[in-house]
């Protein structure tokens, strides 16, 4: 990309900014200053890189899925974020923000979670760094992600059930922000995606872009290795996608495809396709594409995947969409479940339902992708979804 940070107002083009209560604004300014200071400090990078290597298990491999490649008639590679510690890319951000929390001298951390992956990754970072941890989670998500709820408790975190709204990710973010308004003086909010008021979208992208940087170094087109023609990633809030897209955005010869949740089908109105079928507005502190009614009330999203069940998206994705840097498409619950089975049976890898959305688009578009080198960001493993899929399959 030709830019690194958002502009002075925290904007990517017209998107982003900080629409937050005055009570929080000083903490957002403090966070921006703390991040700038840390990000320019070689010691911070040394500590982060050491944890990435020895604790998280980075770099994650890029795996050539040969059997599935043959079946689909294309060259499919998987960026194995499912192999990172705790089973998803979320740990990249929570380790980074956990170190920042300590640098700011705060002792308590709050977080929201949808699928539970960010909650687990935050609880993990807090256990590692000796921080108190409270995770807000919608009651519907607590039900469909019971395994991750128990993992968070094992890691010493307190899980708060949120019954507002539909009891999903949007409501958990709102509850975490309300808690933060009251506790901001001693608490840091480790937001889980490239969403929220400035500087969060920028900070989370910086911590996640390691995914794309590793991919570029691994599949560099040299010594018999291909380079990517198409990079595909699922988009809920959009942190795994931002992490893999950012280093490739605007690079000639690489197309980027973000896959949103079509849920029961776009025409039913029960979906999570904020970029594909939403409109610009302010959700959770930033200007971005979102699902809203004619009067600006936020609409409930729907997806079988708790991580994609969100009526907004990171503001930098909104910028990428309008700038034509990424194509945003969507696949339905049913297509995602089929892809979940396909990868499990063909490659021995059980993918997260979020990641299954990315694969489902590749399966659907296999004819136009024939012969191309396609990289799927396998953002997380599917252990957390096994019980839910067992229920779907009956």
């Amino acid at each position: 990309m030709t830019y690194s940070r958002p502009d002075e107002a925290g904007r990517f083009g017209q998107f982003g900014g900080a629409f937050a209560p005055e009570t929080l604004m000083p903490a957002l300014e403090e966070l921006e200053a703390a991040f700038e200071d840390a990000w320019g400090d070689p010691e911070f990078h040394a500590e982060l890189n050491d944890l990435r290597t020895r604790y998280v298990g980075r770099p994650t491999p890029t795996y050539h899925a040969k059997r599935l490649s043959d079946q689909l008639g294309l060259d499919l590679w998987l960026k194995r974020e499912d192999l990172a510690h705790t089973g998803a890319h979320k740990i990249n951000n929570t380790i980074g923000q956990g170190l920042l929390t300590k640098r700011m001298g705060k002792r308590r951390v709050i977080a929201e979670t949808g699928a539970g992956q960010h909650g687990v990754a935050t609880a993990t970072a807090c256990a590692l760094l000796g921080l108190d941890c409270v995770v807000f989670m919608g009651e519907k998500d607590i039900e469909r992600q019971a395994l991750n709820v128990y993992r968070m408790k094992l890691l010493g975190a307190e899980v708060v059930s949120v019954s507002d709204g539909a009891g999903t990710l949007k409501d958990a973010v709102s509850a975490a922000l309300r808690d933060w308004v009251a506790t901001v003086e001693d608490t840091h909010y480790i937001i889980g995606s490239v969403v929220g008021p400035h500087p969060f979208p920028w900070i989370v992208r910086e911590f996640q872009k390691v995914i794309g940087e590793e991919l570029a170094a691994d599949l560099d087109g040299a010594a018999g290795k291909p380079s990517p023609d198409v990079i595909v990633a699922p988009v809920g809030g959009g942190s795994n996608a931002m992490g893999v897209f950012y280093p490739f955005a605007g690079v000639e010869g690489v197309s980027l495809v973000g896959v949103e949740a079509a849920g029961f089908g776009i025409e039913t109105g029960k979906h999570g396709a904020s970029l594909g079928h939403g409109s610009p507005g302010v959700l959770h502190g930033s200007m971005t594409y979102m699902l809203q009614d004619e009067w600006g009330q936020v609409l409930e999203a729907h997806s079988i995947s708790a991580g994609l069940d969100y009526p907004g998206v990171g503001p930098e994705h909104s910028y990428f969409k309008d700038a034509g840097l990424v194509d945003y498409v969507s696949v339905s619950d049913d297509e995602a479940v089929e892809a979940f089975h396909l990868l499990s049976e063909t490659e021995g890898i059980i993918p997260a339902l979020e990641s299954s959305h990315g694969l489902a688009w590749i399966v659907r578009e296999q004819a136009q992708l024939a012969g191309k080198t396609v990289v799927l960001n396998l953002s997380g493993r599917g252990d957390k979804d096994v019980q839910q899929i067992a229920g779907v399959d009956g």
Partner: protein
Amino acid sequence: MFAESREAGRGVLLPFLTAGLPDPVASVELFKTMADAGADGFEIGIPYADPLMDGPVIMAAGHRAIAQGITLPDALGVAAAVRETTQTPVLAMTYVNPVLRSGVREFFAQAAERGINGVIIPDLPIDEAAPFSAAAAEEGVGMVAFAAPTTTDERLDAVLETEPAFVYAIAEVGVTGERDAASENIHALAARIRARSDVPVVFGVGISTPEQAAAASRHGDGVIVGTAVVRRVMESSTTVQAADALRMFVSELRSAIDG
């Protein structure tokens, strides 16, 4: 409003109530009851489903109003009727997204047309407020700016530079809701604002009892009492019951403030 109250040495009492409860017609009656009991003006909440600055009581009131079909134009209609019926100043409180959805200019034009005196947007910090303030000024509607106990001196200077209709001074670090103890921040925050400006200062957030209202209004120009008002309406099963509860509560607030 503030010139007269300063002249008289009297704190301004601004109750907050969500528009449209229990229904649009009875809603106006409840505001009338509070005006008769001594309210000087009102903050009228436009129902929003995802209110980041509000605690559970005001959030539930918004959800109930939305479930009853109260839309933005309905809420502005209630505000206009309250203005006409009570002949007191009326402030509309909304989150930022409905304003953007209406169009900033269009929203303030609508507000002006309905006689609304000022607009309060709790998720619009001064950093993002310029286009809103410009539209408000053109339409002759006041903009309210916030100062919190966490606001730095640098930010406080910038808040006051926007020349707001008044400063909404946040008494408690947290979302709206009732508190048992009196705020410990009011004195310090009031002193910091007064050292810089003569702008009217109204305290809100966590002011829920007559004693707290009286204490806070002594440090500024007045108080906004929200959750304690909304809760009385939410707990009432009839409009008559709600009106009785509000008449008694607002009278108590009035006497305490007038001391």
